C-alpha cells in the first residue's frame, strides 16, 4: 500500500522547494503553481467528535474545552468507553415492600476492560450525561489570576485609548484654537483638566481585580508517600506518566483515582494559498462526508507520472491526465527548461518595465492581478529554476521531443473500444494509449555511477487554464506551466 501515496519514487517540486508526491500537493488555479502542505495556510474548518461524528460549533467547543460531552475515553488505554446496563432491584416508589428492577449504567473499556466501578464511581441511572466531571483543585486560584490579568489588560487598553485621544486632540487644538475661538478648550488642556463632554468615553478608569500574591513554601502537595520505602510496591496500582499527563488537572498517582476522560474533538482543516489567499481545499460541513466544496488538489489538475516498467537502460513512464480539459504535455530535460526559463524571464522583465510606466505598483494589485503580473511570474520562474537545479541528478533520460496529447478525463471512455485516431505520433516514443493514459518510452543513461541510489529529473510543460476567466463567449487560453519532477530509481 505504500506505493499508493507514501511512495517517494516520483516527486514533484513545489514552489517552496520541497519535494512531495503528487497526491499531497495542491494546484492553485490563480497562481498556476504547485503548493504543498508546508506552503499553504491551514485553517480549522470543522470541529467534530470522531466517535459520534457530530459537528460542534466553535463557540460551544471553547466553552466545553474542545471536548465531546457524550463520549468518554478510557484513562488507561485511551480507547472509547462503552455504556453497559445492569438490572438492580430497588424498592418501588408506590409500595416500598415490592422490589422493582431498574436499569443502572456503567462504562467499560472495550480493549483493557477497565470499568468505572474500579474508580469507585457509582453506577448512574441514566445512560448519558450524568457522569461527574473531573474537579480541578486549583480552579479557584487560576480563575482569580485570570480575572486579575484580564483587568490589567483592560486598564492598559484604556490608557492607550486615552493617550491616542490626547495626541489627536493636542494637534487639533494647537493649530485651530485661536482661529475658531476654541481658546477655552486650549486653556482646559493646558491646565491639565480632563476634557469635558468626552463623546461617550468612560470617565472611570477600570479597576484592577486584586489577588493575593502566592506564598512560597517548602512542602509540596505531591510529596512521595513514605510507605514506598517500607511496603512492597505493586506497579499495577500506580499510574504511568502518560496516564497522569492525560488528566493534567488531577494527575492521579494511584490507579484507583483514574476517572473517565471526555473525548477530545477532532479537526477538519481547509487549506488556503499563501500568495493569493484563495481557498485550495474546503471540506463539506458534514464530518462523515468525503466530498469537498472546493477541491483543488494537484492530483486533478496536473498530469500524473508513474513508472510503468523499469530496466537497466530503459524506463517506461505512464502519464495520466485527470483534469476536465485535454492538454498537450511536453517533457523537457533540465537544461532545455533552463533555456526556456531564461528567455521567458527576460521577456517578462521587459513587460515589467512597461507596466511600471503605467504606474501600477505591486502593492496596489490584488488577487488575480497580482498572480498574473509579469513581476510575480518572473519571480516564480526564477525560484523554480533555482530549486530545480539544487536537486542532484545522476541519470539522464532521453525524452520525446514533440508535445504529447493527453485527452481529458472521461469516465465513459473505459467502455469505448476504439482508440482516438488521426494522431501523428512517433510510435517509438508513445508506446500505448488508452483513454486519458499514455505510456511513453524514456531510455536511461547513467552519468554518475558512484552513488547507488539513482535519481533522474525532468520538467513537465503543460497547459493550464487560469481561474477567474471562464465566460461563455470566450474560451480561456491555457498558459504554459512548468513543474519539475524528480524520480528516485533506487538501485538499477
Amino acid at each position, binding site marked *: *500500500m505504500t506505493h499508493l*501515496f507514501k511512495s517517494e519514487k516520483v516527486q514533484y517540486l513545489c514552489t517552496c522547494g520541497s519535494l512531495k508526491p503528487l*497526491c499531497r500537493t495542491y494546484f492553485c488555479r490563480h497562481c498556476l503553481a504547485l503548493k504543498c502542505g508546508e506552503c499553504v495556510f491551514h485553517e480549522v474548518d470543522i470541529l*467534530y467528535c470522531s466517535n459520534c461524528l457530530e459537528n460542534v460549533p466553535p463557540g460551544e467547543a471553547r466553552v466545553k474545552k474542545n471536548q465531546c460531552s457524550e463520549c468518554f475515553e478510557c484513562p488507561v488505554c485511551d480507547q*472509547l468507553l462503552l455504556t453497559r446496563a445492569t438490572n438492580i432491584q430497588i424498592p418501588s416508589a408506590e409500595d416500598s415492600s415490592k422490589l422493582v428492577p431498574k436499569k443502572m449504567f456503567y462504562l467499560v473499556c472495550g*480493549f483493557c476492560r477497565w470499568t468505572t466501578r474500579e474508580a469507585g464511581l457509582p453506577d448512574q441511572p441514566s445512560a448519558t450525561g450524568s457522569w461527574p466531571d473531573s474537579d480541578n483543585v486549583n480552579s479557584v486560584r487560576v480563575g482569580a489570576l485570570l480575572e486579575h490579568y484580564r483587568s490589567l489588560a483592560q486598564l492598559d487598553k484604556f490608557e492607550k485609548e486615552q493617550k491616542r485621544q490626547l495626541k489627536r486632540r493636542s494637534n487639533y487644538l494647537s493649530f485651530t484654537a485661536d482661529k475658531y475661538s476654541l481658546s477655552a478648550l486650549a486653556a482646559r488642556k493646558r491646565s491639565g483638566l480632563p476634557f469635558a463632554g468626552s463623546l461617550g468615553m468612560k470617565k472611570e478608569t477600570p479597576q484592577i481585580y486584586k489577588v493575593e500574591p502566592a506564598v512560597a513554601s517548602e512542602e509540596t502537595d505531591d510529596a512521595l508517600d513514605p510507605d514506598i520505602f517500607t511496603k512492597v510496591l505493586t506497579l499495577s496500582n500506580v499510574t504511568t506518566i502518560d496516564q497522569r499527563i492525560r488528566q493534567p488537572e488531577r494527575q492521579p498517582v494511584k490507579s484507583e483515582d483514574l476517572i473517565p476522560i471526555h473525548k477530545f474533538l477532532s479537526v477538519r482543516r481547509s487549506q488556503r494559498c499563501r500568495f493569493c489567499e484563495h481557498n485550495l481545499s474546503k471540506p463539506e460541513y458534514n464530518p*462523515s462526508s*468525503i466530498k469537498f466544496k472546493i477541491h483543488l488538489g494537484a492530483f486533478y489538475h496536473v498530469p500524473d507520472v508513474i513508472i510503468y516498467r523499469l530496466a537497466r537502460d530503459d524506463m517506461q513512464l*505512464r502519464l495520466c491526465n485527470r483534469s476536465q480539459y485535454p492538454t498537450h504535455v511536453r517533457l523537457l530535460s533540465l537544461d532545455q527548461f533552463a533555456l526556456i526559463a531564461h528567455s521567458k524571464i527576460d521577456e517578462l522583465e521587459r513587460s515589467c518595465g512597461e507596466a511600471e510606466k503605467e504606474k501600477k505598483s505591486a502593492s496596489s494589485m490584488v488577487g488575480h492581478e497580482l498572480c498574473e503580473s509579469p513581476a510575480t511570474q518572473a519571480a516564480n520562474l526564477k525560484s523554480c529554476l533555482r530549486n530545480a537545479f539544487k536537486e542532484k541528478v545522476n541519470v539522464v533520460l532521453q525524452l520525446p521531443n514533440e508535445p504529447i496529447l493527453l485527452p481529458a478525463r472521461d469516465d465513459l471512455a473505459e467502455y469505448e473500444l476504439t482508440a482516438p485516431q488521426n494522431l501523428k505520433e512517433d510510435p517509438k516514443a508513445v508506446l500505448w494509449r488508452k483513454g486519458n493514459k499514455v505510456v511513453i518510452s524514456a531510455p536511461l543513461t547513467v552519468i554518475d555511477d558512484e552513488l547507488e541510489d539513482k535519481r533522474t529529473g525532468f520538467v513537465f510543460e503543460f497547459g493550464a487554464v487560469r481561474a477567474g476567466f471562464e465566460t461563455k463567449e470566450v474560451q480561456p487560453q491555457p498558459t504554459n506551466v512548468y513543474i519539475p519532477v524528480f524520480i528516485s530509481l533506487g538501485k538499477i
Partner: protein
Amino acid sequence: MELEDTLFSTSEYVQTHTGNKVSRQSTLCGSQNIILNGKNIIMGESMIRGDLANVRMGQYCILSKQSVIRPPFKKFAKGVAFFPLHVGDHVFIGENTVVNAAVVGSYVYIGKNCVIGRRCILKDCCMIADDTVLPPETVVSPFTIYSGSPGHCVEELPEAMQDLMIDYTKSFYQHYIPDKDVSGVNPINLVTRK
C-alpha cells in the same frame, strides 16, 4: 509503480457473469445470504460467514488470502442476534485479517493481520494499517489512518484517497488474470449463481 500481472490458476478460480473472481478454496458459508455486486476478487482460503447474517459487498472489492469476514453479534437479554455486514465499493482487505465490523464504507484500505473489532464502523476513505487491532465499537472517521494495538489515529490521508483507491482496485482487478489453459480452450468457467 504500475502493478504487475498476477496470474491465478484457472482451475482454482471461478468467474461469474458479473465478473466476480472467486477461488474454489475459499469458504463461502450461507452463499444465499452473500451478495457480491460485481468485479470482486475472493482469494484462496478466505472465508465469508454468510450463514450468520447477510453480507453485502460492493463493486471492485478485494478479499485477500486467509481473511475472514464475519458479521458482528449483539447480546440481548433474550439471546444473541447477528447483524448484517455491509461493505462498500473499492475496498481492499489484506491477508489474514478478521473483519467483524458492522459497516465498512467505500474506498477503504485494510492492511494485513488486522483485527477489526465487532460492531466497528469504518467510514468512507479511511485506512487501517497492517497489524492493527481495533477494539469493539470503534468509529473510524474519514481520511484517517488507524494503526497500533489498540488502534489510534496516527495520520491523515490525502484528499485524493477516493480516486487513489478506485485506481488501485481497478488496476488490481484488471491485472488479476488467469493463466491460459494449455489446450487453448476458454479457461473461464461461468456459473449462474452470484
